């Protein structure tokens, strides 16, 4: 059984690649211009999530552009949705 699961890796890779190439562009096309971030909601998402791993950083520590890069990095680490990330970014940029 273990061998069988392991041998499915190429298949899983193929299915994953198919999902990415077929679904992602479609999703992007449907998405168009993503909704803007909501600073009020972002404040709550920021407070609820960032401290799950580390001490909270002061929004004034970084510029708007720096926060944009950092939030993308943290979206990757923290498993946020795109909307969560935009909301957090809107809050941080409004607060720095």
């Amino acid at each position, binding site marked *: 059984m273990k061998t069988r699961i392991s041998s499915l890796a190429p298949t899983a890779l193929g299915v994953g690649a198919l999902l990415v190439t077929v679904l*992602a562009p479609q999703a992007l096309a449907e998405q168009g211009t993503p909704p803007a971030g909501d600073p009020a909601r972002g404040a709550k998402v920021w407070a609820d999530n960032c401290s799950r791993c580390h001490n909270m950083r002061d929004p004034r520590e970084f510029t708007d552009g720096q926060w944009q890069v950092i939030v993308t990095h943290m979206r990757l680490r923290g498993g946020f949705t795109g909307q969560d990330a935009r909301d957090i970014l809107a809050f941080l940029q409004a607060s720095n």
Partner: protein
Amino acid sequence: MAGPRYFISRKHALAWAMGAVLGWTAPVWAQGDEPWKAEIEALRREIRQAAEGKEVDSRFHLAGYASVDYVDPQTGNSSFTGVTFNPIFHYSYKDWLLLDAEIGTQLSSEGETETSLEYMTANLVLNDSMILVAGRFLSPIGMFRRNIHPSWVNKLPSAPIGFDHGQAVPLADVGLQLTGGIALGATRANYAIYTANGPMLELNAAGDEIEEIGTEGQGSDMNDDKVIGGRVGWLPLPRLEVGVSFATGKASGEGALGETGNRDYDVVDVDFSWQVAGFDLRGEYTKTELGESPAAGIDPAEKEWTAWYTQAAYRLPGTNWEAVLRYGGYEPPTGVETRQWTPGINYLFAAHVIAKLAYEFNDTDGVEDDDRLLLQIAYGF
């Protein structure tokens, strides 16, 4: 008789007026000229920087962390050690590409500088719930290795026992990963699935026993059999997350180990984190299994590594002090189990500048206790 006539030419009147104005204003400018000019220049600079930040598609940001440790073991010499500097490079293009790389720089016990590429990934944001990650990434198995191990994030000066290099948890891998977050009504979930080169078996110095499974992220596949794995996290409440991870594939080694065939490799992991009533609670359990060798060879028996920990931290209200207590255990294939208690106290000079003092009580079956005093200064930037 006409009275005296006071004649002042226009030129004189103008000169007089200018003189009066200058005479009145000069002292004011003399007193406030420089501060005002400096402030205006600072505002201009700020406006320029703000405009620059908004008008470019490419952005670069340097982050990272650094730390210095002092270790005083019960047996052996005390040392200043663990001098590490890990810069993290972020480059983003618009909002759909992020290059993410961490260089680990560490001072060895011999005083030489050791460097390593901790991770380097190209991340494509496909949509609101999908990011494609390619390259060498931190293992998404569990929570500690991926999110908690940086020194300014970890609330104690050491990793939990069993969660370090060559022990129970995978550290990194090279391949492809799909990850993201999903809104589920009032709750939220996140996921990561990946396929990668997988681990490499490593022998002890005598060459007769498998000592550890190398999971630093191999740049080649030892057996042409990719590992697949992933993690699903669920947040039923905003500050509570529970996660389940797995990985499965084949493991093999170089040299004589390569002749013993590919062995089953399986990892399972469960983790949780919860912030409640001022406490930060977290824990993780992980088990790595290596199947028996399909051919007679070196160390052919099945093997198992298990490790777990629970940790509570509490920031004393209105102060910069934080108390931490961790309890964990580790059992390598030798079957000799170690239990570890680690109480600690931290002082936060800032959210990202922390002094940590801790004491590890290590209790290993059949071995004399080797407790340690640990001190660390950690800095995140």
